[in-house]
């Protein structure tokens, strides 16, 4: 038993345990925190495979940026303990069970079939790539050559989403502010809309 196996075992227990704890946590903030722990554990498994770059992204993007925003929303909206137990969407639960079963079936299929598809050579090829040009260069090469178009398209999509959210959530404090410059008499001061 190597040190690597020990680290993997600990990470495995932490990831699975915190994922379960997330599902069963009564407090929304606690659930979010357990999800953060699960994501950090996932980053450790990436590190174990020599995928440093992916591990860093996992922590910076998911644990560092996205979950902080989640936490922010939960904290500021003050999700009450009672709220968490009321089901706003009645169809949600059976649908979740159905989709969950589908996902589980998919995972089981890939675990049993995927090893045959990839083979031992697949894992070795990735390890070799991580060692020789390094994880950063290997990711950068495919990202900026073969997958450049999807990469750029995704970034544009994200920008569009951000701008869209800004426009949709823009709160207008006073109806009088809605007036457009054309409605005003000439020379009148144009009021800007407070956001």
């Amino acid at each position, binding site marked *: 038993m190597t040190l690597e196996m020990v680290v993997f075992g600990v990470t495995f227990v932490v990831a699975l345990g915190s994922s379960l704890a997330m599902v069963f946590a009564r*407090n929304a903030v606690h659930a979010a925190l357990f999800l953060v722990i699960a994501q950090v554990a996932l980053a450790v498994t990436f590190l174990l495979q020599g995928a440093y770059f992916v591990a860093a992204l996992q922590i910076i993007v998911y644990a560092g940026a996205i979950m902080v925003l989640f936490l922010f929303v939960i904290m500021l909206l003050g999700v009450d303990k009672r709220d968490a137990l009321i089901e706003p969407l009645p169809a949600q639960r059976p649908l979740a069970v159905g989709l969950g079963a589908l996902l589980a079936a998919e995972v089981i299929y890939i675990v049993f079939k995927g090893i045959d598809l990839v083979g031992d050579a697949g894992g070795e090829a990735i390890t070799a790539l991580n060692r020789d040009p390094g*994880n950063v260069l290997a990711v950068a090469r495919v990202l900026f050559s073969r997958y450049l178009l999807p990469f750029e398209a995704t970034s544009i999509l994200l920008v569009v989403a951000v701008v869209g959210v800004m426009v949709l959530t823009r709160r207008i404090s006073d109806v009088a502010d809605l007036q457009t410059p054309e409605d005003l008499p000439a020379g009148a001061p144009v009021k800007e809309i407070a956001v």
Partner: protein
Amino acid sequence: MNWVIDLIGGPQTVIAIAKVLIVFASLLVLMILVVWAERRILADMQARIGPNRWGPFGLLQTLADGIKLITKEDFRPQLADRWTYAAAPVIAAVASFLAFAVVPFGDEVTIAGHRIDFILSDLNIGLLFFLAAGSIGVYGVALAGWSSGSKYPLLGAVRASAQMISYEIALGLSLIPIVLVSGSLSTKAIVAAQAGSVQNVTFFDGIPVLESISRYFEYVPNWYIWSQWPAFLIFLIAGIAETNRAPFDLPEAESELVAGYMTEYGGAKFLMFFLGEYLHIVTVSAMAVTLFFGGWNGPAPDFLGWVWPLAWFLFKTGLFVYLFVWLRATLPRLRYDRLMWLGWKRLIPASLLWIAVTAVVNIDNAQLSRNWKLGAFGVMFAVVMVWVGKGDPRLRSAVSPQRRLDGTT
């Protein structure tokens, strides 16, 4: 003994564990010195004496304060969220310690046939690791404020998180030009790229006049600060904001928020926050030295090989810590909307512009040397920034919603 070493993974693992323990202990001792130094320097700047009772020059004062804090009663507010309240200070302190793992604090040394690097872990994603540790640090602050179950901490935490997330972007963007010119994310490689004097690199190529005077530049070190000073300024400002220090110490503005997110903390838990904050100062200083001031590079005599790089690193880092204290003694606190304005509307566009400039210069290195071009663009960049920075009245009115509603722009 040997079978124990083999069991835990060979001599390299033993060296790694020993390094972690030694660096951890040294950082704790260093913290005592930094806190003492800050109090003495502040006192000096305010024409006071400062702590001078315990130990020579009051050196042991911080130790006494630490013992006092640890032996204090451990309390918990009634409305606090039990586990989160306890975990928050630990997260804050650990995140600061983590960031130091990728700081190269000296050259390598060979002991008993084993090469020992003076860096905890030379990751090929060193800079990203530094950013990742910073983004984990936000949790310590946000959770502390929320879990205290009290108003002032929550307000402080919201401010702090918003500030740290905003300035994290500028901080990350200011590192990209360095990655572009050095071609690596590894901190060790970045320090290695800054070794030697400017004379030996392509600094003077292409211009005959400059080539002839290049011998006068033998003693000018080849640091990135010469060509990358706009990135350095952005890094420094964003770094100070990341550490929540003056003039960006709004999250713990004592005149408005008692002590911000750590209002409800005391004793050993408060000590953890304190430790985390001062360690963060040291880490940001060490990063500034590593990226822009040649890291541990410096003139060294032939004897005591490994001591000089370490000494140079500590000296340069110490200068930056001094700068942090100096700023605290000098500058008034920013208004909150001004802080956000500076981060989002000035630093982020400026760093994006500088990335573009560096990238363009980096493509073509045929005639003029890159560094001269970067220097020339740097001056242009400064002119543009000053011109934009003067600000038009519309932007000034934008930070005061009340004035805009009144229509008095």
